[in-house]
């Protein structure tokens, strides 16, 4: 692995689907997903389950986000009697951050205790970044992803770049394009 720089920031499109079970249909909902699409769901809010081609994140009671690595992952359907499915990928940007300065930079914008178990590697939380709702996924010891609403993404990227001392924005690794706002 290459030497870890102070802070690296890259941006990619976000392949994201939200699924949600009704109050009282969760058991059936979960077993359907597992049987038909091979997707395992995390048990508690903030927990994530890494599986081939996607990460499943529990973002609220009965509500999950499926964050795909690339297009072509399992396409999910939900029986309307069991729950709902909403595509959220167009409206969000996926920001990857890594480097030694990451905890310091984040301490300036997110009220998250980097050392808490709630954000241990593999965990995710939804919180506020300068008043903007973001999903923060701790992907490694000194790396994370922020899932940011598209309309706010330029403001947030500007903030991150400025507080990291003007790092250059890396192109995305899977879409090859900078986000359009």
């Amino acid at each position, binding site marked *: 692995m290459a030497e870890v720089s102070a802070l690296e920031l890259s941006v990619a499109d976000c392949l994201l689907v939200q699924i949600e*079970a009704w*109050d*009282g249909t*969760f058991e059936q909902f979960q077993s359907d997903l597992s049987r038909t699409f091979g997707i395992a769901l995390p048990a*508690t*809010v*903030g927990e994530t389950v890494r599986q081939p081609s996607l990460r499943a994140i529990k*973002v*609220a*009671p*009965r*509500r999950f986000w499926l964050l795909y690595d690339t297009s072509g992952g399992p396409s999910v359907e939900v029986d309307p009697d069991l729950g709902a499915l909403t595509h959220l990928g167009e409206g969000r940007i996926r920001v990857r951050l890594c480097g030694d300065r990451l905890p310091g930079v984040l301490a300036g914008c997110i*009220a998250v205790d980097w050392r*808490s178990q*709630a954000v241990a590697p593999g965990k995710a*939380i*939804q*919180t*506020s970044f300068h*008043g*903007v*709702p*973001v999903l923060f996924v701790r992907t490694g010891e000194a790396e994370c992803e922020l899932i940011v609403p598209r309309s706010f993404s330029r403001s947030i990227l500007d903030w991150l770049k400025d507080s990291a001392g003007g790092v250059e924005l890396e192109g995305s690794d899977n879409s090859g394009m900078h986000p359009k706002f």
Partner: protein
Amino acid sequence: MLRIECPCCGPRDHDEFRYGGDASLVRPAHDDPVPEAWYRYVYVRKNPVGPHREFWQHVTGCRQWLVVERDTRTHLIASVSFARKSPA
């Protein structure tokens, strides 16, 4: 600053939440035609000194509506629970 311990997200600053008023009131049924019932629900609100049950929504988190028991004198929070009875 209040710190509210969301039952599913953990303790957070109050600016992640939206206030929703008195949680001890019972909302009339949607088709309750009695003006008195709606008048009481909308306008007749206590402003207690001491423990108060109130709604807060974790807006930048899980978006769940919560019932927070807060002491209006000390801002100490005795309990936080989901407003929905069975959030799973």
